[in-house]
């Protein structure tokens, strides 16, 4: 089938086309981190309420994705990575995408409020607003710190999960937010170092282009140092425990080691070994976040162990 036939009025979008608008891969991360936030919280929800909370948080995340694709359809059409998305490929119209996004956003916020509490619904509404308006519409094309701002939007789900269970924000919820917020820039900038992204064509100011690659390497190290402090510091809060502490120390040492190696390399060395360290750092960053959150989850399931007088 050609693009002409896709764009013709005869083409009816399938359910899969609309599903793709919701960025299902991003939704997986949203569900997992929100699930950890929900289970790590000191209060418990009935399983049906917990399931509903996760579902509506995921739908809210999906709505943000649809609105992001609606606004960025011009940009998506210019980049190889995104040109096959439903709108630039002509499978879904912009009007359909914005209608779906707005409808699902409103639906998810109201339903989360009814299923759990209105504070959680408020945080979900703010997350959608932050991602769509502050990040996508306003700052993404204006600042090279766009990844940092986008990272904040992706960091809210565990906080929403926590608030859904407890009704309030606490230091633990903020720490889970901080872990994802601080993890996103080094993760994404490492990817930007070894892939030739065509953000230039789309006029999106990426740090690698606006400040250069040596500066990006320093930024990776700075964010990793701050992230390490938060990752290990979280062990001494309600999120922590011996499982989390051991996991955080081991993973952070490996992560820091690679960040230091990245900061000491230049483009000649990196090109000579095919960006081996940058690729290794990027792959491990995925594992790093997954392991930290799994450790929080395991710690909350097994409960505190009586070590160091019950401190951990």
């Amino acid at each position: 089938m050609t693009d002409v036939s896709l764009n013709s009025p005869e083409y009816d979008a399938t359910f899969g086309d609309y599903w793709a608008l919701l960025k299902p891969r991003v939704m997986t991360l949203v569900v997992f981190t929100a699930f950890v936030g929900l289970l790590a919280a000191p209060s418990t929800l009935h399983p049906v309420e917990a399931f509903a909370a996760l579902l509506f948080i995921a739908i809210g995340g999906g709505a943000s994705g649809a609105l992001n694709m609606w606004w960025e359809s011009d940009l998506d059409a210019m980049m190889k990575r995104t040109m096959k998305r439903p709108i630039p490929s002509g499978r879904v119209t912009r009007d359909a995408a914005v209608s779906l996004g707005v409808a699902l956003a409103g639906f998810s916020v109201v339903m989360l409020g009814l299923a759990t509490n209105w504070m959680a619904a408020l945080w979900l509404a703010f997350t959608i607003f932050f991602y769509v308006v502050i990040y996508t519409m306003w700052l993404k094309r204006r600042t090279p710190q766009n990844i940092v701002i986008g990272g904040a939007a992706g960091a809210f789900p565990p906080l929403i999960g926590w608030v859904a269970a407890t009704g309030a924000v606490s230091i633990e919820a903020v720490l889970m937010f901080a872990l994802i917020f601080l993890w996103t820039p080094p993760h994404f900038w490492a990817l930007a170092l070894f892939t030739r992204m065509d953000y230039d064509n789309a006029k999106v100011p990426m740090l690698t282009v606006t400040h250069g690659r040596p500066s990006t390497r320093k930024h990776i190290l700075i964010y990793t140092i701050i992230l390490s402090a938060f990752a290990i510091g979280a062990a001494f809060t309600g999120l922590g425990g011996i499982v989390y502490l051991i996991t955080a120390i081991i993973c952070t040492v490996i992560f820091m080691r690679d960040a230091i190696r990245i900061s000491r390399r230049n483009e000649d060395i990196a090109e000579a070994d095919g960006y081996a360290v940058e690729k290794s750092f990027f792959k491990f960053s995925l594992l790093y976040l997954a392991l930290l959150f799994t450790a929080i989850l395991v710690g909350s399931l097994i409960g505190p162990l009586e070590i160091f007088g019950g401190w951990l």
Partner: protein
Amino acid sequence: MSFVKQSQMHARRQSRNTAVALCLVGLMILTVALSLVKLRSAGPTEGFDHVVRPALEDQGS
């Protein structure tokens, strides 16, 4: 429009409509389950005004 194209279009529509129907049924089941959970956790209430009735609490104990 040829019959083949029409048939493909109908097949796509049917599959989309079936998926939407399944989502709606799932949502309906979830809404009923949530309502039951909320009602049970609310304790003794009277359905028409959702106000706690001490008299009912006494009967229950």
